[in-house]
């Protein structure tokens, strides 16, 4: 029932489009990008590769598709430090963007959504010398709460909430055992693409 109605409607729409533009209905594969901050993103569909520059908020492939051609836009290469997905989502302005794949002409215009988020990297380290059954509280400034470690006599690993690429982090001791002094080495930095591996908290007996 739906089909019997859809087909003539499509035919009519096509006929109108054809009439309107001299016999050539074409559909640019275009859309909006949110959150892109770095260079390197390459979008691809129907044999076309489209490099997208940092901070771009829209894209449009060079060659428009003809009516009935199927497209499937993929993020062929991610931008530096970010991950992008081609998906249907509601944009900040309330516009609903289409998903990555469909048939040209099913909508009046193709308006695909690309959403990019900055990668987050694990923030963890080692605790040495924490006396058994005593507890140590570590924080990364005012971001992400408090991590409590309880001494076992052996070295411990702690993990704070992950940090986005390019953000600063600064691990400090919020509370230490009454008779120990704990200090952090390599605890402050600017997050790179890989997790820092040399963060160490060392606790020693107060003298």
């Amino acid at each position, binding site marked *: 029932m739906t089909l019997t109605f859809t087909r003539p409607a499509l035919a009519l729409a096509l006929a109108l489009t054809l009439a309107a533009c001299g016999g050539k209905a074409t559909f640019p594969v275009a859309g909006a990008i949110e959150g892109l901050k770095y260079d390197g993103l390459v979008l691809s569909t129907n044999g076309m590769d489209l490099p997208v520059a940092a901070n771009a908020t829209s894209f449009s492939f060079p060659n428009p598709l003809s009516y009935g051609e199927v497209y499937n836009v993929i993020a062929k290469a991610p931008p530096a430090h970010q991950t992008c997905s081609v998906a249907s989502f509601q944009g900040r302005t309330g516009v609903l963007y289409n998903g990555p794949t469909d048939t040209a002409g099913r909508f009046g215009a193709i308006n695909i959504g690309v959403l990019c988020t900055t990668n987050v990297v694990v923030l963890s380290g080692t605790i040495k010398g924490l006396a058994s059954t005593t507890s140590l509280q570590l924080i990364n*400034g005012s*971001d992400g709460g408090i991590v409590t470690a309880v001494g076992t006599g052996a070295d411990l690993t702690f993990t704070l909430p992950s940090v986005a690429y390019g953000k*600063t982090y600064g691990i400090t001791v*919020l509370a230490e055992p009454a008779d120990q002094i704990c200090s952090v080495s390599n605890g402050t*930095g600017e997050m790179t693409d890989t997790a820092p591996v040399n963060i160490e908290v060392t606790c020693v007996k107060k003298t």
Partner: protein
Amino acid sequence: MKNLTLRASVALACALSLAACGGSSGNLLLGGSVVGLTKPGLVLQNRTGPLLPVAAGATTFAFHELIGNDQDFEVKIATQPTGADCVLANNKGKSGAYNITSVIVTCVTQTRKLGGTITGLNVNGLVLVNGSDRLDVPAGATSFEMRKVADGAPYGISELPRPTRPACGVQNGSGIMGTTDIGNVVIAC
């Protein structure tokens, strides 16, 4: 005749209300949603009715006392939470036939200043961080102020290492933000 019908319906209405809620004056719920409440101490009140404490972390509330049809209501904040400020919306009106769940309580946790003094800083390049908050401090500065921190949140100030300059020491750099501004962090260079 008319009088009789009226009497009968009043009696019926009475009986229904009594049956529905064990003798209180109505059968409609009065409540709504709570947004952003992270601190304890909030107390709500409908007009001059009983007080309703709302716990930190709550996302909804409803008064224990039901209200009747066609009854005025006005939800008020009897006590603000400690360290947060709440405001009300859709809190005043007259009940109809349905439960009222449209009252909105929106709370914002208070923030406090985080800063202190700097001594001996005679070169550029000092960068202080409180987690993701980053502050570049120029040579000659004798004080600093980071971004504000929410009441009850931890803070920990440290220095971003720079190969070009020796490290400064940080005193009183970590703690939990209380009810007053912090200004006693000392950076000694």
